[in-house]
């Protein structure tokens, strides 16, 4: 029993040590701008532009659902123009960033872990080293930077799509006029609402790409290990998104 606890404790400390080394190596690789600079633009396109359709798809249906849900919950004592308020606030501050983050944890995080994991087990990462490249500058930094920059952009588009489909659903399916919806949207609106959602998105971009890169670069073995790294990336990223969601609420909304 004692041996098992000891072994787990050692494993945990080792795990933290590996993460520490990974972070230190990644930070050091920042000085190699010539390597990560051009590749960051490539990753921004891959990670950002290619992820936009799924983010817009999710936001579109979330906007419709929110508008109908709000009208269902609001009784005759609550003015219906508040549908606009609820759609705007919820999409910008919560559902836009979180649902997009969860979708991208699956799409982007899993993709990064699978790609880097495969490169690791087929010695492509070793090959990079022998060609005098720093693999952290070549593989990790571009993906992490692309995540931090592109996630807020994707979420901004998702926010716009969610509000638009919420407006469309409200004005076509509910007894709400365009003016009423817009009035509700503007009521209690602060620019901070959008900023709050975008700050959260940037932090989601950071953790999803970092987790994907760490687990991908740590992959050893073969196809099974790559599959395991991919699955763990999705699970850990989803967990971290929810933790960060609560963290930002505590830090910025109190």
């Amino acid at each position, binding site marked *: 029993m004692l041996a098992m606890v000891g072994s787990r404790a050692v494993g945990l400390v080792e795990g933290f040590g590996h993460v520490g080394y990974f972070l230190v190596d990644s930070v050091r690789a920042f000085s190699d701008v010539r390597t990560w600079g051009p590749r960051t633009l490539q990753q921004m396109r891959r990670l950002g532009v290619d992820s936009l359709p799924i983010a817009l798809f999710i936001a579109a249906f979330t906007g419709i659902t929110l508008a109908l849900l709000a009208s269902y919950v609001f009784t005759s004592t609550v003015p219906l123009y508040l549908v606009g308020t609820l759609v705007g606030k919820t999409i910008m501050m919560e559902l836009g960033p979180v649902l997009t983050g969860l979708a991208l944890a699956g799409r982007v995080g899993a993709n990064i872990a699978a790609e880097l994991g495969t490169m690791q*087990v087929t010695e492509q990462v*070793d*090959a990079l080293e*022998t060609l005098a490249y720093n693999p952290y500058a070549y593989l990790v930094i571009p993906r992490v930077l692309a995540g931090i920059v592109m996630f807020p952009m994707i979420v901004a588009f998702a926010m716009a799509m969610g509000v638009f489909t919420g407006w469309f659903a409200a004005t076509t399916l509910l007894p709400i006029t365009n003016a009423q919806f817009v009035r509700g949207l503007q009521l209690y609106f602060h620019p901070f609402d959008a900023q709050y959602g975008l700050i959260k998105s940037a932090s989601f971009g950071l953790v999803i790409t970092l987790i994907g890169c760490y687990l991908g670069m740590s992959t050893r073995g073969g196809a099974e290990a790559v599959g395991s790294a991919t699955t763990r990336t999705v699970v850990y990223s989803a967990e971290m998104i929810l933790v960060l969601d609560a963290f930002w609420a505590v830090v910025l909304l109190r």
Partner: protein
Amino acid sequence: MIAFADLHKAFEANRVLEGFTLDVRDGETMVIIGYSGTGKSVALKHVVGLLEPDAGHVEVDGKIVSELRRPELTELRTTIGYVFQFAALFDSLTIFENVALGLRRNRDLAEADVTQRVREALRMVDLPRAEEHMPSELSGGMRKRVGLARAIALRPKYMLYDEPTTGLDPVTSAVIDQLIVRAREALGATSIVITHDMRSAYTVGDRIAMLYQGKVQQVGTVEEIKGTADPVVRQFIEGRPDGRAVVRASLGEAGRAAALEGAET
């Protein structure tokens, strides 16, 4: 000159190298032979700093590899061409881009020079029309030739080959052997070739060293190895299943997997 000095390396309980000592002289091609999983690739990875020794060291040009800081190690790596067992080509890049990647690290090299050197290297391995193909479109032998082109395009001082003919048919193996000889003549590089293919070892090697139980069992010229009286070396070069050599159970399939897993740590 490359010198392995009393090199020790273990992966958890699996001791792979136990005092491996070998000098590779300037300009020669040293072939390291030995059973699968005896640590030949592990030894080679120490030369480029992909692994750190538990004890002992590897010296390249008088520098102890494990003591180099990253910028110095990077500098050293620019002088070494490494041909991987399974080529390790970058899946997402074309053949041209694969070969050009190492050259583009050199700030002094203009793009026109990069193009010229890539084409020259691909011509040397008889793949002049493969530039725009992706690695997945090539056969195993062609991929190995591209791996070789990627290394020789750098015009390195040292060439390291990790089982260059493993998994290839005899004719393709002979072609790879010819290319190794041709690359040596063109570059004048000091080379280490890891193999357990004796025909290949006799064709490309100046000297042959056998790695057995973590140490060098015997080192000598091709003729000396062919005429050896050492029963372990004799059994290996003749490929006899019965004899004095003990193939370590710990380095069977399970042990080998553990060693490789550790090797990539």
